[in-house]
């Protein structure tokens, strides 16, 4: 037994002093209350018997003193916090609890993580007297839930706070965290609580050679059917329609029949039954779908529930980009190709203006200048310059170009999305000289002719040739280029990301000028996200639909997040794993009652003795 509270010398001094005071107080005769009686001889008669018992009374007094000293000794000993075991043999145990999506599997009741928590609570209760433990959750990140502490209350609370996320586990990050924490600590140990569905290859072969590793294995079944890919997009030229891709994977060793349900705006729009062979992934495209304005959700439901123990990967979420009309002003003396191309998108409000009549009344999202470049009106929005003149254009015009084409271009530029401009040829035009900060989107071997940038707070795109002097207008890329540009200006990208992937940091474009936004996650929890450079950063670990709310009556944004991770959907448990050079063994060194707090029992003993003394006093047995 060791003392974890006050040292023995201090306890001895405390007991000595307190015992001395107690004894002195006990020996000192207390002044008794004086009571008058009418006839003392009557009392004398009664007290004759007591006089005969004087020796016994004295003995009872000493017994009472001994009892007081015993109570005092118990109290002082309680201050020492005695515990079984030695004080110097404590371990430092770092517990990494896998809280990835696979731990939501229900092949063990109530879930793998639930079972892990039950096991972990037993381990906490079985900690040695000098053991210390730190509990951390490990999914796509690592979050310590306690300090390296011996406090059972803190550790129990940490265990209770464990919650599985919809992310893949990052073992590399977890092991790095463990190594950092255990550096310099004696008798350190890593306890991994997991189903073993880990990417062990992230560890180097010689890693963890000198570190004791234990492994608490959870789970016994690999039965699972999952949505492993899910994506949706609107058609660029018909935003009322969309197409969808979904991949469903059967991880079972037997074939599985599943129902694939598609819900648009919460209403079932498609129901398909699939039969998947063992290990098969079935990718399906659903083209030309309509009737949904905002949310799409895919669900797979196994016909046989015993073939699907992982519920969290049975969903795919997507949010269709919001449709709104873009106001476009076209400043031209007449351009059939331009006007015809703009007719393709019914969500454009096009206003035609002669150059002399510019600026027109009203505000616009985009202004297209066809061969002219008057000063851009403040309400004109962003500007697309087609063959801008030498004067007035956003970029300086360079040398004249002849018979040139798209020799190099920015393949990631949203302006050229869905296009293959390599074979477009222009008869004549001019090179453009982008200024610092501008982007050269396309160049020929002779010079840059497509530039994007910002002037006086307005985005612009300048094309250095008249499309009519090229075969551009004859190609399908022409209306695509125009619509890409308009969507780019109006922040309505046709490759709108339908869903984020969980377990990553999301950089969410933020509407408005707020410096902070309120994020509402799928569970309804709210948190404030700071906005930097027009984007709010957030580490997402939950699949589902999110909302971003600006202050006041600002616009609301929504987005979706999906797990869709084939690795995490493989919930096959592994009873034995290898971590670098370490081969974790089963847990040991945990014994029930090892952390019993003796001082509590000492205090209970004091209370019991006090109660006995109180009863005996009031029953006049010890006085």
């Amino acid at each position, binding site marked *: 037994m060791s003392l974890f509270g006050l040292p023995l010398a201090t306890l001895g001094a405390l007991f000595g002093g307190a015992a001395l005071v107690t004894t002195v107080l006990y020996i000192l005769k*207390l002044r*008794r*209350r*004086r*009571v*008058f*009686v*009418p*006839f*003392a*001889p*009557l*009392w*004398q*008669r*009664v*007290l004759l*018997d*007591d006089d005969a018992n004087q020796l016994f009374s004295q003995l009872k007094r000493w017994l009472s003193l001994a009892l007081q000293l015993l109570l005092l000794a118990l109290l002082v000993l309680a201050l020492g916090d005695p515990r079984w075991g030695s004080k110097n043999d404590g371990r430092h145990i770092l517990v990494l609890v896998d809280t990835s999506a696979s731990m939501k599997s229900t092949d063990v009741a109530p879930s793998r993580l639930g079972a892990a928590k039950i096991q972990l609570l037993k381990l906490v209760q079985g900690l040695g007297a000098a053991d210390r433990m730190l509990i951390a959750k490990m999914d796509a990140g690592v979050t310590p839930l306690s300090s390296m502490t011996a406090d059972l209350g803190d550790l129990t609370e940490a265990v209770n706070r464990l919650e599985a996320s919809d992310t893949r586990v990052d073992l590399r990050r977890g092991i790095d965290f463990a190594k950092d924490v255990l550096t310099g600590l004696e008798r350190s140990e890593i306890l991994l609580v997991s189903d073993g569905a880990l990417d062990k290859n992230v560890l180097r072969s010689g890693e963890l050679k000198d570190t004791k590793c234990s492994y608490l294995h959870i789970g016994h079944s690999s039965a699972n059917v999952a949505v492993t890919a899910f994506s949706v997009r609107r058609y660029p030229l018909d935003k009322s329609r969309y197409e969808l891709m979904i991949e469903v994977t059967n991880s079972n060793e037997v074939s599985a029949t599943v129902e694939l349900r598609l819900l648009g705006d919460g209403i079932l729009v498609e129901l398909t039954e699939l039969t998947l062979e063992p290990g098969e992934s079935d990718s399906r495209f659903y083209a030309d779908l309509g009737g949904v304005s905002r949310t799409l959700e895919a669900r797979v439901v196994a016909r046989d529930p015993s073939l699907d123990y992982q519920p969290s990967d049975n969903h795919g979420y997507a949010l269709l980009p919001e449709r709104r009309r873009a106001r476009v002003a076209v400043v031209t003396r007449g351009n059939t190709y331009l006007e015809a191309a703009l007719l393709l998108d019914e969500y454009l409000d096009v206003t035609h203006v002669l150059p002399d009549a510019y600026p027109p009344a009203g505000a616009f999202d985009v202004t297209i200048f066809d061969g002219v470049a008057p000063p851009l009106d403040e309400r004109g929005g962003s500007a697309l310059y087609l063959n801008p003149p030498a004067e007035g254009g956003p970029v300086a015009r360079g040398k004249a170009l002849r018979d040139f084409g798209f020799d190099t271009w920015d393949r990631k530029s949203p302006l050229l999305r869905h296009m293959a401009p390599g074979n477009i040829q222009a008869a004549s035009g001019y090179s453009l000289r982008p200024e610092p900060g501008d982007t050269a989107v396309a160049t020929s071997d002779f010079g840059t002719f497509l530039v994007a940038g910002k002037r006086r707070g307005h985005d612009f795109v300048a094309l250095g040739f008249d499309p009519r002097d090229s075969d551009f207008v004859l190609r399908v890329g022409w209306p695509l280029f125009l619509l890409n540009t308009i969507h780019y200006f109006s922040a309505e990208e046709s490759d709108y990301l339908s869903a984020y992937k969980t377990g990553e940091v999301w950089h969410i474009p933020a509407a408005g000028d707020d410096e902070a936004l309120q994020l509402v996650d799928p569970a309804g929890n709210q948190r404030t996200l700071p906005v930097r450079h027009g984007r709010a950063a957030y580490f997402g670990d939950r699949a589902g639909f999110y909302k971003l709310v600006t202050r006041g009556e600002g616009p609301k944004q929504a987005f979706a997040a999906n797990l869709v991770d084939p690795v995490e959907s493989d919930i096959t448990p592994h009873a034995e794993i290898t971590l670098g050079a370490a081969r974790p063994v089963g847990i040991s060194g945990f014994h029930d009652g090892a952390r019993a707090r003796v001082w509590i029992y000492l205090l209970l003993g004091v209370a019991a003795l006090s109660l006995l003394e109180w009863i005996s006093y009031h029953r*006049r047995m010890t*006085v």
Partner: protein
Amino acid sequence: MMKLTELFQRSRSSGASKSRKKADLLFDDAFQRKLETLAIVSRRVFAGRLKAERRSSKRGSGVEFADHREYTAGDDFRFVDWNVYQRLGKLLVRLYEEEEDLSVYFLIDCSSSMGFGDGRKFDQARRLAAALAYVGLAKLDRVTIVALQADGSSRMPTTRGKGQVFKVFDFLRGLQPEGETDLGARVTQFVAAHKRRGLAVLISDLYDPQGFENGINVLRYNKFEPYVIHIVDPTEAIPRLQGDVQIRDCETGASREVTVTDGLLRRLAQAMRDYHQEIDRFCARSQVTYFPADVNTSFDELVLNVFRHGGFLR
């Protein structure tokens, strides 16, 4: 016969002192009205100088026939029973019981123990003494009140007639319970000072360290008729005490440390009962009338019922 209340009213109207008004609380109107219905019954008849409403063993000039005896020279011819002489031819003289006055002494224990607690015992003793004294006065008995005090006995001079009852009240009102009890010595003083024998009503709690028997025996041996009224306060047998205390005798000051327990209190109550039985047995053995008077018993009940049923009053 003038009633006591009328006398009392006259006294009040004549400007009684404040102390008299204070005494009124102890001897109020209701108390005084009840006194007029009481009379003392004495088992012995003593010779007296004045005729009173008691029959005397001495034959004399009373009106109630007692006996005959043979005529002797010198007898008054008026008492010769001529009817008997005519029938029997013998001269017999009628004898009549002579009514004489009775000396009644009230010996009031004025030790500290009588005033113990809230003084209910002493008040009860004074009210009983006042009641009995009034009855004696009303019957033209010779009433003497003697206070048995530690520094000697003080007495109210012998008086007769109920008009003197306020002297009784004043005397009783002026008494204070203090000092130790020594009934033997105090009663011896009383006997030495009062040669005229009579009824000696001892009113006391009988808490005498020297023994309660001493005082009673002195009265018996000196031909007084003792009548013991034992003032009893039951709460003294079951004091509200608990724990470690130092008990101190209210008269002697003798002290002792004691731890009061329920068992001790039970034994104390038993000792008190034994003490009362001891007194009772002693009085019965000595043919002394003994009457325990509980302070919790209302005065009305005590005087009008208990005493009457006990043969003390009629």
